[in-house]
C-alpha cells in the first residue's frame, strides 16, 4: 500500500485520537442508560422465600460461577426455642438443590437468601489497595478483574461472607447485581428465576419503582446494621436470629 506523505499527515493524528478513545474505553450499555439516574438495591422477602434454590442455580449459570463458590446462596434457620441462642443453620451446597426436610423437634423455620449487600459505605471497597473494587456511580459494588491483585483483603473485610477468590481468574469475585443485565433494562438472573417474587431488584432513585412503596409501608431490616455498612439489600420479615 502506497501511503502518500499527505495522507499520513491526516491519518496519524486521526489514529492518535482513535487510539486515545480506545484506551479510554467506552461503556457499551444500552444507549440511554445513564449511571447517575439509578441507585440499585434489592428487596428480599423472607415471608415468600421457599428455599427452592432457583436463584443460586440461575446465578451460577448466568455468571459462570465455579462450583463450590457462591455469589448468592440460601440459608435455612431453625429456631427451636424462644430465644435467639438455640438456632441451627444450614446451607447444603449453598441451597443450590433445595433443602432436605428437617427432622426432630421443630420451632420456627425459614429461608434467608444471602448475597452481596451492595453497601453504600462499603468496607470491602475501603480496604482495596489498588482500586480494583469500587462502588459504581449507580450504587453497585463491582470488581475489575483486570486490575485485581488477588490479595484477598476485600474478602476479609466483608462482614457478610459474600466474596470469594475465583480459582480460574485468581481475582476476587462476588455478586455484581448482574450489572450486565440491569444496565440493559433487564432484571438480575436471581430475580428473574425466583418463582415467588421473594427477590426483587430495586432502583432506589426511581420513584415509580414498587419497592419504594414497599419500603415505606413494611418493617424492613438490613444485616448487621451495627456495622453501618450502608447495606442496600433490604429484608422483609427478618427474624432477630439471622446472622
Amino acid at each position, binding site marked *: 500500500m502506497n501511503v502518500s506523505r499527505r495522507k499520513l499527515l491526516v491519518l496519524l493524528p486521526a489514529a492518535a485520537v482513535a487510539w486515545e478513545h480506545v484506551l479510554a474505553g467506552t461503556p457499551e450499555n444500552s444507549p440511554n442508560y445513564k449511571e447517575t439516574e439509578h441507585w440499585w438495591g434489592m428487596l428480599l422477602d423472607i415471608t415468600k422465600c421457599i428455599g427452592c434454590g432457583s436463584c443460586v442455580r440461575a446465578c451460577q449459570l448466568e455468571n459462570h460461577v465455579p462450583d463450590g463458590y457462591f455469589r448468592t446462596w440460601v440459608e435455612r434457620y431453625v429456631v427451636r426455642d424462644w430465644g435467639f441462642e438455640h438456632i441451627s443453620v444450614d*446451607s447444603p451446597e449453598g441451597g443450590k438443590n433445595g433443602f432436605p426436610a428437617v427432622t426432630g423437634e421443630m420451632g420456627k423455620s425459614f429461608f434467608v437468601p444471602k448475597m452481596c449487600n451492595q453497601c453504600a459505605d462499603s468496607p470491602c471497597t*475501603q*480496604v482495596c*489497595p*489498588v482500586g480494583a473494587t469500587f462502588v459504581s456511580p449507580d450504587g453497585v459494588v463491582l470488581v475489575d478483574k483486570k486490575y485485581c491483585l*488477588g490479595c484477598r483483603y476485600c*474478602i476479609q473485610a466483608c*462482614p457478610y*461472607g459474600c466474596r470469594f477468590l475465583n480459582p480460574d481468574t485468581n481475582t476476587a469475585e462476588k455478586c455484581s447485581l448482574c450489572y450486565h443485565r440491569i444496565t440493559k433494562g433487564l432484571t438480575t438472573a436471581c430475580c428473574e428465576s425466583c418463582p415467588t417474587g421473594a427477590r426483587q431488584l430495586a432502583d432506589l432513585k426511581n420513584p415509580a419503582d414498587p419497592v419504594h412503596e414497599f419500603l415505606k409501608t413494611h418493617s424492613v431490616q438490613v444485616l448487621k446494621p451495627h456495622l453501618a455498612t450502608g447495606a442496600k439489600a433490604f429484608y422483609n420479615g427478618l427474624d432477630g436470629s439471622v446472622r
Partner: protein
Amino acid sequence: MPFDGFMYPNEVELQWSVLIVLYPFLTGLVAGAFILASLERVFLVEAVKPTYRLALLTALAFLLVSPLPLQLHLGHPERSLEMYLTPHRSSAMAMFGFVYLWYLMAVLVVEIWLDYRKDIVLMMQSSTGLKKWIYGVMTLGSKNISEHALKVDSRVGWAITLIGIPSAFLLHGYVGFIFGSVKANPWWSSPLMPVVFIFSAMVSGIAAVMLLYMFVTKYRGKEIDMRCVDTIARYLLYTFVIDFSLEMLDLVHRIYEADESFRSLDFMVHTRLYLSQVVIQIIAGTVIPILLLALTQVLPLNAIVRKRIYALSGALTLMGIFAMRWNVVIGGQLFSKSFLGYTTYKMGFVAREGLLTAIFLTLLPLGILWVLVKLLPPWSEKDAAAIPSSLSGQQAD
C-alpha cells in the same frame, strides 16, 4: 465435613495462609532490631554498642525478604506495582507499601550507608575485581572520609535514627492496623492491635539480635560481652512485660464485655487454637521466658548460667511471637462471621503457600545476613581486641 456448625459457604476455605503469618513476623523482627540499634545511637545506651551494626544488618536482611511471602500469596503478583501506581489512600495495605519503601530507602539503607561509609571506601581501595566494583558503587563516587566528613555523617546518621524510631513504630504499627481496622472480624478489630504488634515486634527483634550476637560471637571464637547481653536481656524483659500486659488487657476486656462474638471466640480458643495460643504462645512463649529473665535480675547467677537462660528465653520468645502472629492471622479465619461454626486450616507442604515455602523464607534472611556480614563486617579485629576475653569474663562474675 471440613467444618463444624455453620459457616457462610464462601468462608470454609481460608484466605490468608501461613505466608501471611510469616509477613508480620519478619517485619516485626525488622522493627525490633532497629529499635535495639537506636537504643545505642539515640538513647546512648553504650552497653549495647557491640550489637549496633549487627542489628542494622539483621533489619536489612529481613526487610529485603519481607515482600516475598506477599508476592507468593498474591493471585496476580505481576500486578503488584499497581499498589505504587494507583494506591487507594483509604487502604492500610496500600499506604503500607509507602511506609515500607520509606523505611527501607530513607531510613535503613541511609543509616547503614552513613555508618559504614568509611569502611566501604577503605574496602574499595583494598579489594579487587567484582568486590571492588560493588564497593565502588556503594560509595556513590565519593571517597571523602575526612574527619569532618565523618562528623557530618555521624550527625546526619543520628537524625536519621531519630526519624527511624517513629518510622519503625509506623512500619509495624501499620501491619497491626491492617488487621485492627477490619470491623468485620471481631478477633482482629481492636484499637490495641497496632500497639500489641509494635511491642511484640520489639520483643522478637531484640530476642533475635541477642541470639544472633551470641551465636555469631561464639562462631567467630570471641568472648561474648556480658555487659552487652545483660543489658539487652534487661530491655527484652521490660518490653516483654509491657507486651504481655497489653495482651492480657485485650483478653480480660473480651471476657468482661462478652459481646456477641465472645462465646464463639472463647470456644475457638479452648479447642482449635488451644495448642498454639495457650500452650505455645502464652505459657511456653511468654510466661516462661519472662520468669527466666526475671530470675536473672533477682538472683546472682554466673555468666554461663545467664548465657544459657538468655539463649533459651530468646528461642522461646521467637517461637512465642511467631505463634502470636499465627493465632491472629489463622485464628481470625477459623471461626465463622456468623459465630455459629468453625473450619480448619489445611496447610500444604510443598505448595506455593505451604510450610516448606514458609521455612525457606524464614531461613533466607539468615542467608542474606551472612552475605551482608561478609560484605559489611560489623566488627573489625580492632574492636575485639579492645575487650580482652579474660577481662570480660571477670566482669560478668
